[in-house]
């Protein structure tokens, strides 16, 4: 897939010296969904704002489909749609008019069929003549997406699209994102919901303190950094781990009825067969055995902690 967004050594310093972005370099391919994870204040929104033209970069270069966001800003911005984090809408304006306005603002001539398509896709068609102030919080977020899609962008930025929304709406949003991806729209979303990135992203980037710590395909990242845990439940509580099992670095559950063995999935040998043999030799009898893959959240926490250290 060709690169649609090319970010090179992007830096942003505010007055007073605070460095919000410390040389971010990132290439995003057309048609992919990339999730940028990071704690509050990591620089996620600054990165998006700088690419979209809301904030001026201190240095660095950004190209959208080969168009520089500074020298060729018109061509670059025509390709971008932005859904901001805050619900910022004119309360007294009708839904359809605010979407028409967005389309016009991006230089696209009026096209009622296109507007209807967008509003229907976002389940807003029935509310098209309602003033925005009458809509629910979830509907307002949909209006923001409709506005961002009004000029048919090729790249869509979603800045924490599901912050503070209920589970049902979050799942709805994920469906919308999946639909857009099917249409070939490149999506960059920021979130601090790991579950969100895990559910919809193709690649994951982790930002902390203005630096991009890593960018990797979600599946590869989980395979590379993911640990698996084997939980062995025992028929009788175990007072202490026998010396014969000390080499496995086992941990016990709080009620002492199970031991947990952590192993590397990419290792040649996991050591599970040997462990189970040694448990049997130690005279312990098993009730159940289960495994658990560590989540993206565990990986994220590990990365951010490593960076802090």
């Amino acid at each position, binding site marked *: 897939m060709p690169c649609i967004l090319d970010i090179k050594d992007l830096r942003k310093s505010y007055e007073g010296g605070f460095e919000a972005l410390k040389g971010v370099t990132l290439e995003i391919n057309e048609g992919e969904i990339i999730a940028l994870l990071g704690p509050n204040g990591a620089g996620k929104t600054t990165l998006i704002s700088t690419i*979209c033209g809301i904030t001026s970069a201190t240095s660095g270069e950004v190209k959208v489909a080969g168009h520089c966001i500074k020298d060729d800003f018109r061509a670059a911005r025509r390709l971008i749609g*932005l859904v901001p984090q805050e619900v910022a809408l*004119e309360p007294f304006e009708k839904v359809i008019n605010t979407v028409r306005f967005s389309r016009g603002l991006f230089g696209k001539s009026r096209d009622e069929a296109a507007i209807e398509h967008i509003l229907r896709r976002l389940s807003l068609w029935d509310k098209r003549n309602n003033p925005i102030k009458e809509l629910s919080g979830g509907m307002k977020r949909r209006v923001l997406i409709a506005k961002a899609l009004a000029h048919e962008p090729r790249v869509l930025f979603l800045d924490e699209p599901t912050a503070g929304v209920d589970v049902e709406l979050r799942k709805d949003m994920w469906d919308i994102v999946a639909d857009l991806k099917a249409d070939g729209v490149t999506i960059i979303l920021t979130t601090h919901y790991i579950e969100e990135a895990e559910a919809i992203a193709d690649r994951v980037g982790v930002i902390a303190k203005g630096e991009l710590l890593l960018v990797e395909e979600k599946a590869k990242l989980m395979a590379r950094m993911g640990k698996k845990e084997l939980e062995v439940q025992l028929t009788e509580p175990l007072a202490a781990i026998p010396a014969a099992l000390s080499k496995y670095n086992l941990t016990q559950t709080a009620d002492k009825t199970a031991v947990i063995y952590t192993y590397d999935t990419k290792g040649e040998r996991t050591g599970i067969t040997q462990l189970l043999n040694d448990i049997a030799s130690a005279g312990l009898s098993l009730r159940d055995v289960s495994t658990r893959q560590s989540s993206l959240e565990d990986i994220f926490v590990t990365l951010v902690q490593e960076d802090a250290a």
Partner: protein
Amino acid sequence: MNWTAIKAIYVFEMARFFRTFLQSLISPVISTSLYFVVFGAAIGSRIDQVDGVNYGAFIVPGLIMLTVMTQAISNASFGIYFPKFIGTIYELLSAPISFLEIVLGYVGAAATKAMFIGVIIMITSFFFVDIQIQHPFAMVLFLVLTCISFALFGFIIGIWAKNFEQLQLVPLLIVTPLVFLGGSFYSISMLPPVWQTISMFNPVVYLISGFRWAFFGLEDVPVLTSLLAIGFFTALCLAAVYWIFKTGWRIRT
């Protein structure tokens, strides 16, 4: 030039005006009628004529100017301040439009609204006094230039303001006194010499004088000077807007 975007801003802003059309119309009509009752009937009956013009008619150009200036400022300042206040400014900043296009959209709409209200006041005044416009072309020119320059000024105030109090501060503390002291309801020649000299530093004097000349052929200052003054004020506002957009002052972080 992204004309579609300019049109989108213009139409959107005008829609706001027409949404509250009745309020937009009734308020200036009532206040103009009150001015005619107070100044025209009560004071006018004692003044009778100014430079050969009936006092009721004499104050019409000043009244139109007073309303047009305050409306142009308030519409333009609110037009750009409101998106800043509610956060929708993000859309303007991320759109493929230059600042010149943003100014054309907002200032164009604010100037149109002000002109619309100016015309309404003129029509209202016809019900109270008999007026002949001696130089209609010059009258339209002064009206248009005043609407545009004061809308530009209002736009600057809207960018500058950080809260609603600041938005009201300049119109209330500076513009209204300047308009009242600028000869809206009297001829500068009626003042003592010292105040006549001081008045010459008030830019509004030139605008009202020029506008009044278009109506009656009367002038406190030569009409060409009036035209130069309004041109200078427009140029000053344009320069300030250009600087704001070059630097992103109070818009772009």
